[in-house]
């Protein structure tokens, strides 16, 4: 549970396009790390490289290493499938499996790992839904389709699905961008609870959100059109939002960007 991540000289490509340039950063366990920066600077790309989801895109590849508690997830002999089982992901748009019931959605990852016992699955489903603050809303309709929920509920369902397998790390790409303020608050509260158990990395465009939920913040920027995105600076969130080292960071945070 809850491992640290060390990214070392990570270059990320889409075919010949160099999207992210030589990122080196450390993500602490039991904390929330926020990735911020202007659109197109490679936040999603970096996030997806952290659980080897990047490579499902044809032609996509990385150079460098990502160490999970010291072990390179890109090492030879490590399968992307096993990496993704320990590093969970929540996407920008809620994506429950529409053909599965709410409960089946939650335990989908466990089923993949071969957990069969009905009692065990039921228990974990309840625990995960409680963990995602969704249990009270859905406990009477666990067999209804996951698509029958509201957007915010669906996103919490996706979080429940991701935490059901007890991953070491939880990656979230703008998890609240499609949600109303109330659902957003619910998910932010959830993040502060979840960080007791998981390492969380979140991409967000919402400065207040980054300031509210994260312990560390990494600011990325684009040096110019067609150039790869770069990590400008990373520090404690309080420091980044009050007194950053770089001028670009300050400009971006205070909205004086571009």
């Amino acid at each position, binding site marked *: 549970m809850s491992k640290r991540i060390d990214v070392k000289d990570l270059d990320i490509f889409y075919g010949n396009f160099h999207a992210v340039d030589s990122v080196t950063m450390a993500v602490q366990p039991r904390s929330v790390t926020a990735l911020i920066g202007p659109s197109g600077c490679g936040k999603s790309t970096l996030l997806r490289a952290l*659980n080897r*989801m990047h490579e*499902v895109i*044809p032609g996509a590849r990385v150079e460098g290493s990502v160490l999970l508690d010291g072990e390179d997830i890109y090492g030879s002999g490590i399968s992307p*499938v*096993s*990496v*993704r*089982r320990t590093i*969970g*992901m929540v*996407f920008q*748009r809620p*994506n*429950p*499996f*529409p*053909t*599965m019931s709410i409960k089946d959605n939650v335990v*989908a*990852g466990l089923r*993949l*790992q071969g957990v069969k016992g009905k009692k065990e699955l039921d228990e974990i489903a309840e625990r995960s839904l409680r963990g995602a603050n969704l249990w009270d809303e859905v406990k009477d309709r666990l067999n209804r*389709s996951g698509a029958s929920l509201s957007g915010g509920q669906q996103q919490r369902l*996706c979080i429940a*699905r*991701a935490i059901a*397998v007890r991953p070491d790390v939880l990656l979230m790409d703008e998890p609240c961008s499609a949600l109303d303020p109330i659902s957003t608050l619910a998910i932010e509260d959830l993040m502060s609870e979840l960080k007791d158990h998981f390492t969380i990395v979140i991409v967000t465009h919402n400065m207040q959100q980054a300031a509210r939920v994260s312990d560390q913040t990494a600011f990325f920027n684009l040096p110019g059109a067609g150039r790869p995105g770069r990590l400008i600076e990373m520090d404690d969130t309080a420091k980044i939002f009050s007194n950053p080292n770089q001028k670009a960071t300050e400009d971006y945070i205070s909205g004086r960007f571009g």
Partner: protein
Amino acid sequence: MDSPSGHSNDPVPAAERGRGGVGLVDEPAPNPDDQGKNTARRRSARRRGDVVFARLSAAAGLTLVVAIGLIGLFLLIKAIPSLAADHANFFTSTQFDTNDPKNLRFGIRDLLVVTVLSSAFALLLAVPVAIGIAIYLTRYAPRRLSRLFGGLIDLLAAVPSIVFGLWGILVLAPAITPVAVWLNRYLGWFPLFATGNVSLTGGGTIFTAGVVLAVMILPIITAVTREVYRQTPVAHIEAAQALGATQWEVVRMTVLPFGRSGTVAAAMLGLGRALGETVAVLIILRSSAKPSHFSLFDGGYTFASKIASAAAEFSAALPTGAYIAAGFVLFVLTFLVNAVARAIANRGVAR
């Protein structure tokens, strides 16, 4: 609906409404202000477009329904006198004797058995293969190979059925005879594999016809399922991948459930083709004096091949009507297949 002043002060929009907007009660009253006039005019033009389009498509749909109804009616009208003159039971008789117009004895039992048996067998063979190919092409094959392979399968659809028939009886039948003999010897106790009413080694059996039909309907089923599977939303696929699903697990969790109703629809499309296929079946199946016993090693005729085989003699009205009656049953059968397919497909969506 219109203020009188609108008519007198502003004839243009009124004329427009006269042409296209009959019955559009909530038309805004013309505004003396120029800007407002333009908006109103544009809006009424768009509404007129909607109305015209709605009526056109309704008309097109209606034409289709009427055409199908007329075909059915035509078949029925031509068939009724012969049905009335039938001395055998139309549904249960295995005879189809129309040589003597005064003593017509015809029934569709064998035609129905042979048609359904050969088509169902073909479907059973073709659907799993088509699904396998479609999955391979959409989820496994490298893009270039996928395009090439897909093209080859589409090419299969362009082969004339007469060629399939010749290939079936001359090439395929001898090749699969050992399989047929084996099935008959060891599983002959099962009615489907019992010794039939034609020569097993001759190959003119439902078994051979079914395999050929399977090859013939493979392209359409593959093409449709491949298209459906390809449209599986990336979001679902990535959801499965992010949980650590292997390629096959991704297919099982997202592609197949998503494409379920499409797969059923594709299979039914194939079934429709198999039910109606004529020339290939006519060439392959040997006829037999003995009735069918639900064995794959029977020969005989399907509805379509029976009608085609007698086409040269369609001169006297009564005997011809017997074949038209058979055609009508095929027509209804195909309709039923489609209705069932639709019901299944809709249920898939509702879940």
